[in-house]
């Protein structure tokens, strides 16, 4: 493994693959906080040059976190198809990038080689790609999934209705939900972040969303994003959950910080298959986001792009219905400004899709980040062009419970109209029956939440 390069009259010698991977990243405040980022622009380029010439086998043979000590590494290793890996192991990372971008490489070809890739190889190639590379390569990949309905088809942009309320008021939640539905939002999931992480609260919210779905015969799925243990308790008490949710980290220690491990995820998987209300086969909802391992001091000196990719390697094991990175939620010490958030959003979407995940993105920011709603407009358009499966719908983009800004019901409706995208087919048929949508456009009745009263 060659870790040396000469650039602009200077020789750069890196000590390890871990160092090359970190320094090859585009600038991120989180890598700087961890003390592993490139010193300057030249060193960043030197790392990219070294990485470009590494072989995929170099990456696999030099694990950043050995499978013997980390169960996430074990899951990633176990999913590799050895025959396909054998065909591409001598490729350099540069060659992998070019293969993905070839006009003769389509969805089927990418789908096949993806089975021979590890999460670290996926992260490595993302580091060599420009923003437009990430958009184009991702746009080739179609990953569909089915819980109660199918989403992810080419030309479909779904939306999560996120009708959160600061005290979990059922009436308040329903008010925001009715508004969402009236704008044609809610095909990805009716998904609520509860304030109170108790089985009782989860049960009430699941019951309430299920009642709305039943009353108006809405073809979608519900989920309450409490801790997995709380959801399991609620399901065992008879709560109607179509899916289970959990936040993931890219290391076993990071997951410990979330209060989970693979044994627990396996147990939840079995439970939702036995006692969930969803049709399946895809019955999971995962959220991730660059920086969560560092914030839990569980990063092992690995950069945040690679760790994020490892989250996807873990998520893949459970064949989820939806996965989204909550890209700008974590704060400026990990992603400082809009440039870093936009980059991370495109990286995460690409890396997830390349691991065959039905990727959505929570295009978002907090108020102490150097970003505003215009930046979210930009990232949402880029992701729509990249073929993102869904984005988040919050009333006027302002989540009054989580205190951050995301994308709005209006934004999803606008992206559909301007980018010629449609809701999920089953959901669109329902919107037509309700008189909210006709010929792929909102009708004059749309935007009236009292349609559901």
């Amino acid at each position, binding site marked *: 493994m060659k870790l040396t390069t000469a650039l602009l009259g200077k020789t750069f010698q890196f000590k390890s693959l871990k160092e090359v991977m970190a320094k090859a990243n585009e600038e991120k*405040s989180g890598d*700087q*906080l961890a003390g592993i980022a490139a010193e300057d622009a030249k060193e960043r380029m030197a790392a990219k040059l070294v990485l470009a010439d590494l072989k995929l086998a170099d990456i696999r043979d030099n694990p950043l976190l050995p499978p013997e000590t980390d169960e996430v590494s074990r899951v990633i290793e176990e999913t590799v198809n050895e025959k396909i890996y054998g065909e591409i192991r001598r490729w350099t990372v540069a060659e992998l990038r070019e293969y993905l971008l070839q006009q003769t490489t389509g969805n089927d070809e990418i789908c096949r080689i993806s089975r021979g890739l590890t999460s670290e190889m996926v992260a490595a190639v993302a580091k060599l790609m420009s923003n437009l590379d990430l958009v184009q390569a991702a746009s080739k990949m179609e990953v569909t999934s089915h819980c109660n309905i199918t989403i992810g088809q080419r030309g479909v942009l779904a939306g999560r209705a996120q*009708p*959160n*309320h*600061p005290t979990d*008021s059922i*009436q*308040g*939640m*329903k*008010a*925001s939900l*009715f*508004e969402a539905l009236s*704008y044609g939002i809610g095909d990805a999931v009716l998904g609520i972040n509860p304030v109170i992480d108790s089985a009782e609260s989860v049960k009430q919210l699941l019951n309430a969303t299920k009642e709305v779905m039943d009353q108006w015969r809405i073809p979608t799925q519900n989920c309450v994003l409490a801790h997995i243990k709380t959801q399991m308790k609620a399901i065992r008490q008879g709560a109607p959950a179509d899916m289970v949710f959990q936040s993931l980290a890219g290391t076993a220690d990071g997951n410990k910080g979330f209060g989970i491990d693979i044994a627990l995820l396996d147990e939840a998987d079995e439970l939702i298959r036995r006692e969930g209300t969803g049709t399946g086969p895809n019955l999971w909802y995962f959220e991730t986001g660059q920086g969560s391992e560092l914030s839990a001091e569980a990063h092992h000196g690995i950069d945040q792009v690679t760790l994020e990719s490892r989250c996807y390697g873990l998520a893949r094991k459970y064949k989820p219905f939806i996965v989204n990175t909550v890209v700008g939620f974590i*704060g*400026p*010490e990990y992603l*400082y400004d809009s440039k870093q958030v936009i980059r991370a959003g495109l990286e995460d979407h690409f890396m997830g899709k390349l691991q065959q995940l039905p990727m959505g993105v929570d295009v978002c920011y*907090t*108020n*102490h*980040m150097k970003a*505003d*709603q215009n930046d979210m407009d930009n990232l949402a358009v880029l992701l729509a062009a990249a073929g993102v499966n869904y984005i988040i719908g*919050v*009333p*006027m*983009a*302002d989540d*009054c419970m989580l*205190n951050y*800004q995301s994308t*709005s019901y*209006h934004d999803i*409706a*606008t992206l*559909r*109209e301007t980018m010629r995208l449609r809701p999920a087919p089953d959901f669109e048929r329902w919107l037509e029956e309700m008189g909210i949508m006709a010929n792929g456009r*909102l009708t004059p*009745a*749309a*935007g*009236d*939440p*009292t*349609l559901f*009263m």
Partner: protein
Amino acid sequence: MERTISLERLVDGVLTELEKRIAAAASPGGDEAGGMPLAPVDLFGPAASRVPDPKWEEGVNELIAATPARIGVWRAGTRPLTREMLKFRCDHAAAVDSIYGQVSPAILEQYGLFTVETRYENTENYLKRPDMGRIVTDEGVEKIRSACRMNAQVQIVVSDGLSASAVDANLRDVYPALLDSLKAYGLSAGTPFFVRGGRVAVMDHIGDILQPEVFVLLIGERPGLVSSKSMSAYMCYRPRKGTVESDRTVISNIHQGGTPPLEAGAHIGTVVKKMLEQRTSGVNLDL
């Protein structure tokens, strides 16, 4: 028994003060005696339906009343109406300005708070390097050593944190109410001061220097769109280097419209008293 009587007096005091303020707020002239102009009426007023021809007219208002979320806002094509869009941007502007703002020197002077800085250097670095906001500069350490009483029973420190306007908006209520409350319990406070560019764990560094029994840090919270002026009180029994987050007790969301600042001040005193009695804080404290 004595304490009970003092507490009742304290509550009475708080209620009287509240009544005075409510009366002052109701009078159109405002509280001129204190030289504090009242906040102007919100330009946008309370949330109201913008849906032009709803299926059920009263229903829209019922929904709007059920949540602080921005609903019933209607649309221009698929985009928000101009006024709703500008209202959102105004709220964001207030939030951003509170991060990049400075605490008013007058308020620090009023309560005799001298200023020390952390190693944050500037706001950009403060946001990127939370670790630097946890350490007071060498100069600041000297200042603290020379100005402050060691081993205080209760050490109060104020910091801008992520919202300078939280200090401006709430300190005049929280701080005197807290001092009254401590007095009522017969507790003594050390020398208070202000930390510019502080993070919550700066209390560990200061705790090492001054060795107080209980630490109270009044600090500006990360601003939201609902309020950019929200303050938190972080309290800890004997904070020192290595203190973990679960050892801290917090009262958050202190602002008009959240936890009322006067009540918060009185409540902090009660929590401090329990920490001293139980010699612990955070998850181990029985409140």
